[in-house]
C-alpha cells in the first residue's frame, strides 16, 4: 500500500506575512492530486513544507509514519517521497550523472568504498547506471545520456528533472510546475508522459500547476489555494465551477516570489 501524505492545519509565517494559513490537505494514495492557485497563493511554500524543506509555524505534516516537520528531507526521500523543482538545477554534469543523483538513497557505498572502488561499490554503481538507462529510455532521453544536462533544450531539461525524481523510485512524487515554460506541443507530451508513468506504476502524484487544461485532463483531485488559504477542494470538475476559484483566477495578478532550490 502506498504511503499516505497528509498536512493538517499548517500555517507558515514569514515575518508578518502568512504564506500558508491553516491549510489542510490529504493526498489519497494512487491518485494525481493537483494543487492550483494564482501566483503567490502559497503553492510553492506548501511544496516546500510537504518535502520537509520549510519548517512550519504551526500544524502537522505526516508522511508514512514520519513527522515531516521534524524529519530531515533526506529521510523523507528514503521513506518514498521525491520531488522536482520548478527552477531546475542540474549542474555541469552529464544527463546520466544528473539522474544518478536520484539513486543516491538506493545505493550505499561511502567514502572509503568509493575511493577504493571495491567490487561491491562497482557492482552497485553499474546496477544504478542500468536503471538510469532504462528510465532514460522510457523518457526519451537515451540519446542525450552523455550530454551536459544544462546544454539540452528546456523541455528535455524538465524531463531530466523528472527522471531524477523517478530514479528515487518514490511512492509519492511531488511535481512543481512540470510544464511551466513549455510550448503547447511539449506540454502535451509531458502530460501524456505523466499519465503513462502514473498508469504504469502505482506512484501517487501531487502536482503544482498553472495550466488548467493540463490539470483538468490529468488530476483526480484538486486543491485550490489563494492567499495561503484553501478555497476549494474536490474533483477537478467541482473545483473548475467553484465561484471562489473563478474569482481568484480572474481577479489577481500579484507578482510571484518563487522558491529556488
Amino acid at each position, binding site marked *: 500500500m502506498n504511503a499516505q501524505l497528509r498536512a493538517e492545519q499548517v500555517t507558515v509565517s514569514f515575518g508578518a506575512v502568512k504564506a500558508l494559513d491553516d491549510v489542510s490537505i490529504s493526498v489519497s494514495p494512487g491518485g494525481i492530486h493537483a494543487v492550483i492557485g494564482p501566483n503567490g497563493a502559497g503553492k510553492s511554500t506548501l511544496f516546500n513544507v510537504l*518535502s*520537509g*524543506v520549510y519548517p512550519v509555524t504551526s500544524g502537522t505534516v505526516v508522511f508514512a509514519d514520519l513527522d515531516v516537520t521534524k524529519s*530531515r*528531507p*533526506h529521510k*523523507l*526521500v*528514503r521513506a518514498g517521497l*521525491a*520531488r522536482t*523543482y520548478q527552477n531546475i*538545477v542540474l*549542474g555541469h*554534469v552529464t544527463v546520466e*550523472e544528473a539522474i*544518478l*543523483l*536520484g*539513486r*543516491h*538513497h538506493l*545505493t550505499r*557505498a*561511502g*567514502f572509503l568504498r*568509493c*575511493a*577504493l*572502488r571495491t567490487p561491491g*561499490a562497482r557492482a*552497485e*554503481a553499474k546496477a*544504478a547506471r542500468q536503471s538510469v538507462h532504462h528510465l532514460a529510455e522510457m523518457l526519451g532521453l537515451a540519446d542525450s545520456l*552523455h*550530454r*551536459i544536462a544544462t*546544454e539540452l533544450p528546456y523541455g528535455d531539461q524538465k524531463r531530466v528533472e523528472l527522471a*531524477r525524481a523517478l530514479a*528515487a523510485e518514490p511512492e509519492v512524487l511531488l511535481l512543481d510546475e512540470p510544464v511551466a515554460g513549455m510550448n503547447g506541443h511539449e506540454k502535451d507530451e509531458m502530460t501524456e508522459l505523466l499519465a503513462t508513468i502514473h498508469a504504469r506504476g502505482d506512484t501517487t502524484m501531487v502536482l503544482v500547476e498553472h495550466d488548467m487544461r493540463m490539470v483538468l485532463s490529468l488530476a483526480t483531485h484538486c486543491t485550490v489555494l489563494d492567499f495561503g488559504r484553501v478555497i476549494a477542494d474536490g474533483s477537478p470538475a467541482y473545483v473548475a465551477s467553484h465561484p471562489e476559484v473563478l474569482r481568484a483566477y480572474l481577479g489577481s495578478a500579484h507578482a510571484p516570489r518563487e522558491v*529556488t*532550490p
Partner: protein
Amino acid sequence: MTTIDQTTSRPTQAVIRGVALALIGVAVCVAPLYLDTFWLRTGLTVASAAVGAIGLTILVGTTGQLSFAHPFLMAGAAVTYVTLADNPVNTAHLGLGLPPAAAAVLAIFAAGALGLAASPLASRLSGIYLGIATLSLVFIGQHILENWTAASGGFFGRPVPPMSLFGLSLADSPTPPVLLGVPLQREELLWYLSAAVIVVAWIAGRNVVHSRVGRSLAAVRDSEVLAATNGVNVRSAKRGAYIASSMFAGAAGVLFALTTGSVAPETFNLGLAISFLAMVVVGGLGSVAGACMGAAFIAGLPLLLQEFSDQLPLIVQTGEAGGMQASTATSYLAGALIVLCMLFEPRGLVGLATRGRSLATRALRRTRILTSRATHN
C-alpha cells in the same frame, strides 16, 4: 554542444591516455637518476602540495565548502608523526619511538580526527561561513604549536626522524642502495615514496569525485536543498568531505615534514592556506588533475624563481634590495591568476586544456567532414 563521440574517439583516447601514463610513469621512475638535488627537492615539495591540494579540491571544488584549515591539519599530522616516530632516548622533545611507517599512518588518522573534531562546524556551516570559521583554526593551531614546545619544538621547530620502510631508512647513508649505478640517497628515496603517495592520492581522489559520494558532494555544492530532497544527508556529506580532505592534508603534512626535515610552527600559517586555495583555483576547482597542476605551479614557482633569480629580471635573492623576492613575485602571480581564473576560466588550467582539446577535435572533425564530402563529390 559537448557531445562525446563514442564511436571512434573513445578507444583512441584510451590508447593515447595509456601511452601517456606509461611515459609519465617511466619518466618519474628514472628522473631521480638524472636530476640533481635542487630538482628533486622541488619535486618533493610539489608532491606534498599536490596531495594536500587533491584533498582541498574535493572540499572546495566538489563540495563548495571554503576552508583555510589545511595548514592546521598538515601541522597536526606533521607533529603527530614526529612525536610518534622520534626516539624517546635521543630527543629533547616528546617521542614515543614508534616505527616511522606506523607513525605516518597514525598521523594521517590524527589529521582525520582533527577533521572529525571540527565536524560540528564542518557539517553545519556552509561555504563562506565555514571559510571564516576555519580561518580561526589556523591561528589557534599556530598558538598551540608555539606553546606546546615539547611536541612541536617551539619557534625553532624540531628535526623530523626519517621514514623507514621494510627496514630501509629513507635517509642519507654511507652505504646507500644503488639503482642502475646511481646511489639512492635521501632525496631519491623520498622521491619514490612521494610518487607512490601521489598515485594513491590521485586514484583515491578521482574515484571519490566520480562516484556516488562525489555526485552527492557536487549536489550539496549546487544546492543543499536540492541535494537533501534527492536523498543526500547534507550534514554527513559535508562532514565526510571535511574528514576526507583532512586526511589528504595529513598525508601532505607527513610528506612535507619528511621533505623539509624539520617542522616549525611558523610554516603552517595563513599564507600557506591561501597558497593551497590558489593551487585548487588555478588548477580548476573540483579537478584532481587540476589540483596537481596547480600545486606544481604554485609550490614549484617560488623555488624556481629563487634558484634562477640571477638569470631573471626583477627577481632578487632573499635579503637583497632593489627587486622583488621570489615569494613576493609568486604572491603577485598567484593572486593575478586567481583573479583571472575567477573572471574568465573558472575551470582553471584543466578548463583551458579541455578548451584546447575540443578546439582541436572540432578542427579535426571539420577536416574529416570536408575530406569525406570531397570524396563523395
